[in-house]
């Protein structure tokens, strides 16, 4: 089975260069994620967001590089670290912050919070508090796409840690068996919580598992949005053509702690390691490339940031002013009363 490595080597390494419009689209999605998360982290530290918050900062290139290929009718499943996926899939800041705040105007009416943030209309079938919860569900959505003879695909995002759950194994096997239009995107950030990859699996590349399911395994630099874009594009095209699933491993890193910003303050990652990865900040790398290619100047990039930041302030205000859910709504939505 094909096993493709992609690393950024400079310009012109791509078979199909994305259009400038696409590049700008990817950029904006990344910036939207970054600022949303930075602000969410602060809000949590200020005690405004209750519960657990798993920030996506550092991994933006993956969500943006994959999602730019998808429409709202393509489905994704996400993880406990789900804000980035929803934003890249078109999530609205107002309803997202409102959800994190537990307000009735949130995507889940305040019932889900960060770990269950979702929007069915956008094809975002949920963040998931269960590690490994997503892949079987994405496989099922891909099944529905094939059943309906549509060209839509379903993408499961999951971590290196999640690749050790039985649920991933069963989903990957079934997706390949039925040649479903599914893509398994492993965001390998080197850790499951505080446990380094070397202490949770005896392989370096999660993509090595693909062969066991009879699907291609592809490894890509997850800090390089264009590399992700291209690899995801190939996998998605294969899926749309009815050629079955791909396991796409994106090597990436989370810049903050497992949970919240500073987490529990454990020393499980060396400062050197964190610094090394931060030097490869996916947004900075991408902006440098865009500037070099004269797609987006430094100044234009700043304008994007400013726009996003303004939008965020408005969204936070919206969330803060939104009402808490009415206590009487507690038992709503346990069952559908339609059918």
């Amino acid at each position, binding site marked *: 089975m094909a096993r493709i490595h992609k690393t950024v080597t400079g310009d012109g390494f791509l078979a199909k260069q994305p259009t400038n419009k696409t590049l700008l689209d990817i950029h904006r999605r990344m910036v939207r994620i970054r600022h949303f998360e930075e602000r969410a982290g602060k809000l949590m530290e200020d005690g405004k967001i209750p519960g657990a918050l798993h920030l996506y900062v550092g991994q933006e290139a993956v969500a943006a590089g994959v999602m730019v290929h998808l429409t709202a009718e393509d*489905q994704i*499943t996400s993880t406990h670290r789900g804000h980035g996926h929803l934003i890249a899939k078109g999530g609205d800041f107002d309803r997202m912050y409102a959800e994190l705040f537990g307000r009735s105007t*949130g*995507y*889940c*009416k*305040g*019932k*889900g919070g960060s770990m*269950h943030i*979702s*929007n*069915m*209309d956008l094809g975002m*079938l*949920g963040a*998931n*508090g*269960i590690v490994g*919860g997503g*892949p*079987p*569900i*994405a*496989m*099922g*959505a*891909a*099944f*529905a*796409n094939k*059943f*309906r003879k549509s060209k839509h695909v*379903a993408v499961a995002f999951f971590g290196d840690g999640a690749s050790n759950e*039985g*649920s991933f194994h*069963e*989903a990957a*096997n*079934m997706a390949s*068996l*039925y040649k479903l239009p599914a893509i398994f995107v492993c965001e390998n950030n080197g850790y499951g919580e505080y446990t380094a990859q070397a202490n949770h699996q005896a392989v370096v590349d999660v993509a090595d598992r693909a062969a066991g399911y009879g699907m291609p395994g592809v490894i890509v630099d997850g800090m390089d949005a264009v590399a992700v874009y291209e690899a995801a594009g190939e996998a998605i095209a294969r899926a749309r053509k009815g050629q079955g699933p791909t396991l796409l491993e994106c090597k990436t890193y989370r810049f903050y702690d497992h949970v919240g910003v500073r987490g529990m303050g454990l020393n499980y990652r060396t400062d050197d390691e964190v610094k090394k990865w931060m030097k490869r900040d996916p947004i900075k790398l991408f902006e440098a490339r865009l500037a070099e290619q004269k797609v987006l100047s430094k100044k234009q990039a700043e304008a994007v940031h400013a726009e996003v930041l303004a939008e965020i302030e408005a969204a936070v205000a919206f969330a803060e002013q939104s009402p808490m859910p009415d206590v009487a709504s507690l038992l*709503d*939505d*346990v*069952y*559908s009363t*339609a*059918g």
Partner: protein
Amino acid sequence: MSAVASETKTRQLPYVVAITEGVREVLKEQANAFVAGEDVAGAGSVYGYYRGLLDEFGADRIYDTPISEKGIIGLGVGAAAAGLRPVLDIMFMDFIGECMDEIANQMAKMRFMFGGSATLPITVLTMAGAGANLAAQHSQSLEAWLAHLPGLKVVMPATPYDAKGLIIAAARDDNPVFVVLNKMSLAMMGDVPEGPYEVPIGKANVVRTGKNYTIVTLGRMLGQALDAAKQLAELGIDAEVIDARSVQPFDTEAVIKSVEKTHRAMVVHEAVRFGGFGAEIAAQIQEHAFDYLDAPVARVGAPFSPVPFSPALEKVYVPNAERIVVVAREQLGI
């Protein structure tokens, strides 16, 4: 006895064929319905209740899966979230342990967690019950696990009529519904109308009316309770026998109405008595009909051990009419 009047012809059919007919109606009626499970297509299930459906509906509607229970439930959850109406098969109910996360944390909770935006019209058929010498891992009745999960519905057809009607109702319902079948009922004969009909989910069935004793049963225990009722009649006890049919939603009203009349009640299920769903029923009866009760609510269920293999042990393990009578006599002091 039935909630749905039917103009169509009624035949005597075994429970196993009633299941097939139920699933057939679902596949005919709902273009978005499909069946998936282990050995359901080519083999028609190990108990044969999907036999013929592959030929009739084709490989696009009925799927053999790998031995991957998490995958099967996940497939259903994802497909339902994307708009299909899956009919899933978990071969033996004992295997739900393999996919309790997908059942409890995904299927049951998705709608609520997502603020009502997801709708999961999933039907799961699964085979419970002891008595076939299949030992500890192929004989359990685990409805108590499922009934404790907000978001799920759980029905337990006791007759061929109910098997077909509850499967159709489950598949028309927009919520995940477990249809808990019983392997010892497969050969049971009963009236089954042709064509589609629904047995409403959440309505108990008063199968025998009686004046001074109420027996509430789950699933296959209905037959044992009816036998017991005959024996009790000779002792001057005129038992009303209520088949709960559904444990979630549970028809509290029907049971309470009966107990208010009879003043004495027993609950019978195949599952282990301790921590079984009978405890919920007993607790509800005393909550709602305390002043009517002349004796404590009795519970009959399996003893506190795994299901034994040896026929000599299994025979005394599974609740039956004889045990019901013994317990009733103790309870009533007769």
